[in-house]
């Protein structure tokens, strides 16, 4: 496999009226071409802003840490994302080498421009196609994602399509520029289960055909188990566990991941009562010192958890966890 993306020491803060908020704290991960990485966490865990950082798509009050380094490996050579300043520079990655699918497809399409015109517009920006070629490709892509009567749909507006169809159109649009990396932010959360199953199937097929890397953001571990090759679990801006999907879901190591799985209502076990994780995710303004999970952890060791940030320890070759239960020499 070839390396597609390296994110090293990503730290991201926001200046707000209430003070400076740390949204992402020293997160590192990498992605190979053709690999699907699931990014899991509760609301407020920083998963969306982490993914958006890869395109520098965060609002203007975002402050990236000095150590932050994001490298996208393209055929033409590595691109240092952090060094791209102007929006013209960033156009190479935004919508070109990297595409994004959002959670709410109704909000992501312009309501007064037809689906087709929006698809053609981005192709004209990101490729050297003429309008006729772009139209042909767009209709072909709509057809490819299972939209029947694609040439009619091409002329319609977002409100004329159903939720599932809109999300398919969104996927068609994101993939028509042949991106190397696709960021899918909760792409199935707003859909019904039956439609979700269709969209997940479609995405799996497309990964095989197009061979791009995907960062799949979701809070649903079931969706992760069905789509991802590897998983990264985030909590309050920090990565707490990462590894292959089988390792993390079958043998979760971090108390938070264990708690998430225990809290999940599962159909094949109706007798075990649901076990919530006690308490709430703290506000990013009141991040606890030490391990960020120490306020809710049931396996807390004592002062070490409240004072020092746990380093990543290796559980198995492809499975790492940041928890004091697994490492002795923790850093201050």
């Amino acid at each position, binding site marked *: 496999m070839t390396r597609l993306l390296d994110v090293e020491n990503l730290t991201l803060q926001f200046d707000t009226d209430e003070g400076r908020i740390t949204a992402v704290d020293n997160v590192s991960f990498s992605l190979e071409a053709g690999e699907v990485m699931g990014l899991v966490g*509760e*609301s407020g865990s920083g998963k969306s802003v982490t993914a958006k950082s890869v395109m520098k798509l965060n609002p203007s009050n975002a402050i990236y840490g000095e150590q932050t380094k994001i490298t996208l490996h393209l055929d033409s050579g590595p691109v240092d994302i952090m060094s791209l300043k102007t929006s013209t520079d960033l156009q190479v990655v935004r919508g070109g080498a990297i595409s994004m699918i959002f959670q709410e497809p109704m909000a992501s399409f312009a309501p007064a421009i037809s689906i087709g015109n929006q698809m053609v517009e981005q192709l004209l920006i990101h490729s050297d196609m003429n309008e006729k070629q772009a139209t042909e490709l767009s209709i072909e892509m709509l057809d490819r994602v299972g939209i029947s009567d694609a040439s009619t749909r091409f002329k319609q507006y977002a409100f004329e399509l*159903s*939720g*599932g*169809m809109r999300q398919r159109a969104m996927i068609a649009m994101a993939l028509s520029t042949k991106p190397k990396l696709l960021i899918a932010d909760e792409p199935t959360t707003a859909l*019904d*289960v*039956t*439609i*979700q*199953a*269709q969209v*997940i*199937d479609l995405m*799996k097929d497309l990964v095989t055909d197009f061979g791009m890397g995907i960062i799949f953001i979701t*809070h*649903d*571990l*079931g*969706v992760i*188990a*069905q789509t991802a090759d590897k998983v990264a679990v985030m909590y309050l801006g920090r990565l707490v566990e990462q590894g292959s*999907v*089988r390792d993390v*879901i*079958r043998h979760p190591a971090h108390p938070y991941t264990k*708690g*998430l*799985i225990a*809290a*999940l*209502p*599962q*159909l094949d076990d*109706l007798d075990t*009562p*649901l*076990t*919530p*994780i*006690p308490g*709430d*995710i703290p506000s990013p303004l009141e991040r606890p010192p030490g391990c960020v999970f120490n306020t809710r952890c049931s396996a807390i060791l004592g002062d070490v958890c409240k004072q020092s940030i746990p380093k990543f320890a290796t559980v198995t070759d492809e499975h790492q966890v940041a928890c004091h239960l697994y490492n002795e020499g923790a850093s201050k």
Partner: protein
Amino acid sequence: MSDNVLIEARDLSVHYPLRGKSLFGPVQVVRAVENINLDVGKGNFFGLVGESGSGKTTLGKALLKAAPITRGTVNYNDGEEQFDLTNLTTAELKNYRKRAQLIFQDPYAALSPRMTVRDIIAEPLEVMGLTSSREETDERVREIAAKCRLNLEHLRRFPHAFSGGQRQRISIARALVSKPQFVVADESVAALDVSIQADVLNLLKEIQQEMGLTFLFISHDLSVVAHICDHVAVMYLGRLVETAPTRELFANPRHPYTKALLSAIPSLDPDDRGKAQKLEGEIPSPTNQPSGCKFHTRCPFVTDQCRKEEPILQHSSNGHEVACHRWEELMV
């Protein structure tokens, strides 16, 4: 109406005329709920599931007399008072409101940002004139707040200071402060994170048992319903297609739609990929419904009979009712 039934709906239909669509032609009608026969037993935790657009919210509202009942009857009898919902005077309706309450989906939208938690919870008591003095009101508020695990300190604050899970507990306290017998919880945990969702579900169950309440729990999430409800009804395009005690329904689903819904839930087992029986297409529009069985456009087992005749809900065994022409042969 039998003694252990709290709410009984017979041939209940809710239709909404669509205005402004066609000036001269026939008025289009949205058949949101059609010919529903339903008994909700006293002290039941009754689950109502279906995709968006299946009419579950409308049915819940009709049982609360918050949606217009076009045809059919709904009777309520808790042993002390009884109401015929199709024929209520204003005074009776006011009384019914004390007995039947609603918990909303989004705890961020349901609470007034300008009222303290104490005032939010006390408002129903004041509006309904259930208490005679401020002391009595405060006493009732404190009592229900304690049940919902809110402390005195919480009562003085405003909603913005609370997390999603806490807000939902405030909504629950507000709904229960008038000591209703019947509570409709419409997607009450859908907006919450998994780790918090389990906590709110456990709380609802606890309170239901303690106060002897009857719940109608509306949800699109079958795994949640499986864990909390003791009886489940499945809706599709305004019809009930299957009802059964929870364990029976999940062990032996009979309607092809229920089976498809169950298999569309993403499995937590990464090696269980692609086994699901996928449902094609989407739920038809309620203004332009298919003939015969409403599910025939998506059903893999469709026959000519299904296209012509609409199946009625019939008793099978173990308290199981199903509306399908072919369920018996499909069991084999």
